[in-house]
């Protein structure tokens, strides 16, 4: 049985997209395979690891557990939508400054969840950061530098993090 395709229209990183999708097409594969937005990762594919985290209508959600048809009419932000040109989002910069990653696979999801946290809680404690990242698994860094990265970003976003840490040249 081939199910009838469904027309959807949604805004992703401020760009409108119209498409016809199979009902069973998951949002994460729509983003990755159709639009080439491969920054959103598929880790566990069972809504546990958070590598697929995006913002849908302003909320952090797991795109492996949402059908593309359910996102009809939605406003979506992916990791590709955070930076302004060459200027990284403060949370991206924080992960760079504090080396909040090793292999990098979980990083887009970690960053999307952290951005969501800081939107709602601009000055989180380490404990609050850990709970906010409960839905994101990292299997190499041990989370210490991730928490430091988020604290760095929070400080930067509150205007208190300028020269400290300096620039990292590669």
């Amino acid at each position: 049985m081939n199910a009838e395709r469904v027309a959807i229209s949604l805004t992703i990183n401020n760009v409108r997209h119209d498409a016809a999708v199979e009902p069973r097409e998951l949002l994460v594969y729509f983003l990755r395979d159709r639009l080439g937005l491969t920054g959103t990762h598929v880790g566990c594919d069972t809504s546990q690891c958070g590598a697929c985290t995006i913002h849908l209508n302003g909320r952090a959600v797991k795109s492996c557990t949402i059908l593309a048809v359910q996102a009809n009419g939605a406003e979506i932000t992916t990791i590709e939508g955070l930076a302004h040109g060459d200027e990284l989002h403060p949370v991206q910069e924080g992960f760079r400054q504090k080396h909040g990653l090793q292999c990098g696979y979980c990083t887009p999801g970690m960053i999307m969840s952290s951005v969501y946290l800081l939107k709602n809680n601009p000055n989180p404690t380490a404990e609050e950061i850990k709970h906010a990242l409960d839905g994101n698994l990292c299997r190499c860094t041990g989370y210490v530098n991730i928490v430091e990265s988020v604290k760095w970003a929070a400080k930067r976003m509150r205007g208190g993090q300028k020269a400290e840490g300096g620039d990292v040249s590669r």
Partner: protein
Amino acid sequence: MFPANFGYVAARSVDEALELLAQHGEDAKLLAGGHSLIPAMKLRLASPRTLIDLGTVQGLRGVRVDGDALAIGALTVHADIAASDLVRQRIPALAAAAGVIGDVQVRNRGTIGGSCAHADPAADFPVVLTALNASFAVVSPSGKRTISVDDFFVDFYTTALGQNEILTEIRVPLPPSDAGTAYHKLANPASGYVVVSSGALVRRDGSGKSIDARVALGGLGGKPFRAAGTETALRGKSLTLESIVDASAKAAEGSDPDDDIYASADYKRHIATVLTQRALAQASGFKVETSHPQNQR
């Protein structure tokens, strides 16, 4: 992973969803937040031919006071219940339970109606709603009816909902001002699902004696377990830590939990007692430590 093929219809109203449900019959499933159904479909544990999406129906979201109850739209997501000042102030146990489901992203998408209709024996809402004596507003082509929580949950993944019915609202009686509520959970550290949980509603009179207590436990069987032994033992007693500990010792009395890979039946019964002590103590106004920041604010 992909679900098997299916057809998709976005309902624009409850009436339209009812018509679609009647038209597609047993081959159709209702889709709310999808955080139970979509994983089941990806694993091919469920392969409905048609999904009827309720996410596009207006008017099924939000928390409001309606008479002597809180009325919660079936499509209200866990995060909104956990963050609702109304819920936090009037029924703290409900906010506490909503705040410990899954993780942040799951709470942003999963719905109270979806969770209840799915009736996972390791879910949080069925337990706390049993303690709170909630009821379920349901519509079908033949009209509306209300199902009490003790009738709603039937067994593992089984509710009293008929094939042609849609759950639209969960109604939770507002506890009187002399009452307290609490919910405590031991979560599986990997999945976040309930190993054992305990919800309590305690009413006391002016002298601090218990008039009435409702205690429900999760993780001990296919549906929430009413801790009748504890409820009876506490009736008319002064709410002291001693009386709470004594009553909680009977929490799992009459239950028949299974051993599983994470916990033995004996361990679950023990944890039921411990969590019931905490829930009753907190509901009675004693300070109880919780590890989750959601429950501390």
